[in-house]
């Protein structure tokens, strides 16, 4: 079956511009996560959606970052007034939420470069 897909694969933007990154999770997965991977770093959690519950936004680094998930499926991560420190690979993951433990499946990521 299809995995998690993300678009665009690469995005180059100028400082101060807004960008939107898209994630299509695996069909039927109720949970969706956004992570950020900066150069030479591990993955940093950004935001988590689960069903109709309020999202866990505890990882968003500033109010320039926001995300939404429409219809319990596709998600868009928006970064407003981009800064050079926003340059990173943005990874999306999805999972089925199980009491016994969730396995997150990752998309290929969007590489964002802010000039």
């Amino acid at each position: 079956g299809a995995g998690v897909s993300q678009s665009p694969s690469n995005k180059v933007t100028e400082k101060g511009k807004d960008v939107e990154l898209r994630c299509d999770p695996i069909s039927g997965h109720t949970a969706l996560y956004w992570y950020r991977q900066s150069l030479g770093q591990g993955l940093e959690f950004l935001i988590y959606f689960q069903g109709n519950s309020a999202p866990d936004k505890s990882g968003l680094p500033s109010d320039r970052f926001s995300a939404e998930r429409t219809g319990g499926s596709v998600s868009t991560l928006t970064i407003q007034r981009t800064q050079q420190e926003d340059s990173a690979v943005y990874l999306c993951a999805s999972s089925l939420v199980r009491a016994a433990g969730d396995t997150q499946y990752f998309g290929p990521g969007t590489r964002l470069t802010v000039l």
Partner: protein
Amino acid sequence: AQSVTQPDIHITVSEGASLELRCNYSYGATPYLFWYVQSPGQGLQLLLKYFSGDTLVQGIKGFEAEFKRSQSSFNLRKPSVHWSDAAEYFCAVGFHTGRRALTFGSGTRLQVQP
């Protein structure tokens, strides 16, 4: 705060040699444990996971990992490394309650010499 430590930033092994990548976590209870691999320009692929039960888990591509509660460790092993194993490896922990997001280590980059 919960944390995951991968003490080796970079490891080089010869093809055919054995491999062990270290992972230690700091958490009050036993978390879920994962190893992911990331090839250049690719997303993360799940190698194996530990939720409960047998502490030695088998994964894809001939990898295995052993959970040692007393050492808070979940080291990844492979008896004979192939050149295609060159990649970055991430250990991650998840939790039984509360936040579902994973906490990742900073990764170990594996280089394989012919």
